[in-house]
């Protein structure tokens, strides 16, 4: 096998979907030598109490995340645009769940 020997296994982010959940939720991270073992590790570490029915693992280096420094330019401008909220309509009483 080629490549340098590193001191630690790559980091993976773990997402688990619960039995009655609608989507996978990030539950934590772990180290593993490769993708398949990351899945087994996630099963051992994050689903001990019968929480989940589905696991996704993603190598952390594959995730692009926004930086906290950019919080203001990214998120503040949407705060004062009231016309983007659907609150100007009157919902009739017999229309459910809105």
């Amino acid at each position, binding site marked *: 096998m080629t490549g340098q020997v590193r001191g630690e296994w790559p980091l993976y982010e773990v997402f688990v979907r619960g039995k*009655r*959940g609608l989507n996978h939720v990030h539950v934590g991270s772990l180290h593993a030598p490769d993708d*398949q073992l990351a899945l087994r590790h996630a099963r051992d*570490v994050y689903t001990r109490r019968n929480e989940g029915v589905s696991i996704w693992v993603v190598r952390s280096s594959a995730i692009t995340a926004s930086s906290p420094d950019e919080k203001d330019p990214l998120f503040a401008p949407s705060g004062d645009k009231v016309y983007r909220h659907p609150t100007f309509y009157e919902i009739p009483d017999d229309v459910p*769940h809105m």
Partner: protein
Amino acid sequence: MPDVRTHEPDEHDNAYAGLLVNDVHWAFGTDFEDPLAGVDTTVPDGVDPATLATYCLMLGDDALVLSQRIAEWCGNAPDLEEDIALSNIALDLLGQARLLLARAAAADGAQVPALPDGSPVPDEDRLAFFRDAPQFRNVRLAEVPGGDFARTIVRILLFSTWRLALFEELSRSRDAVLAAVAAKGVKELTYHRDFAGRWFLTLARGTDESRRRLLTGLDELWPLWAELFETHDVERAAALAGVGVDPAGLAADVDAVLDQVLAASGVTRPVSGPLPGTALAGRDGQHTAEFGALLAEMQVVARAHPRGQW
């Protein structure tokens, strides 16, 4: 459709809040189930209770002793994830051992060690902690020292591949309790075999060091492989009565699975023969020198307090 709420108003930091609709306590797990609830515990017709009990002890001791060996990794594994994984495997095996020992005691109480009157220690605990080495019926593969991580992986692979094939057949046992225990165990052992197989592949294809250690472990454990397929008189009697499985019949299927793992890993099957001496040593209560130390460590606390109180 019920009212759909995904988040409490101020709860956007809670990773679990959106997961379970209307239930932010999903992380505590749901639906705890007892797989042996409502199973008929009477001994089937035409089955000698002592035979059934001894057979259950054999399978139970295999799990109990290997569980104790794997548990030696708890707190000592190379990484946190391996520590939890190995402890999980040990706990699965301990659960199987408990059910099987309880079944043995229920079928034939004569084998349960006697304790002072009024001791609340349950039968399966008495069997586990108050029997002596010659009364343990486990195969020697379960009891040999653990060695390094690679050797542990090889042992788990060999043991779980064999035991999974055995339990798949055992789930058709005439004894309802054994069938239920086997059905539950199949799910656990499938994962153990998968986990060990994955690691076997990773170690074999990894570095020169990992491959060397893996091959050494395989060579050292291989002489104990043949013992798993020798049929003891009790196993033969249990299989004839329809409650047990003759291990000799498992060899073909088990070999096929093992060959797949070996082929994928680029490892040749070892050719060393079985250990010298009697083939069935473990099943007859003859154990290795290190077994005494394992038993001493496992039993010392219980034996110090036979009344179960301190």
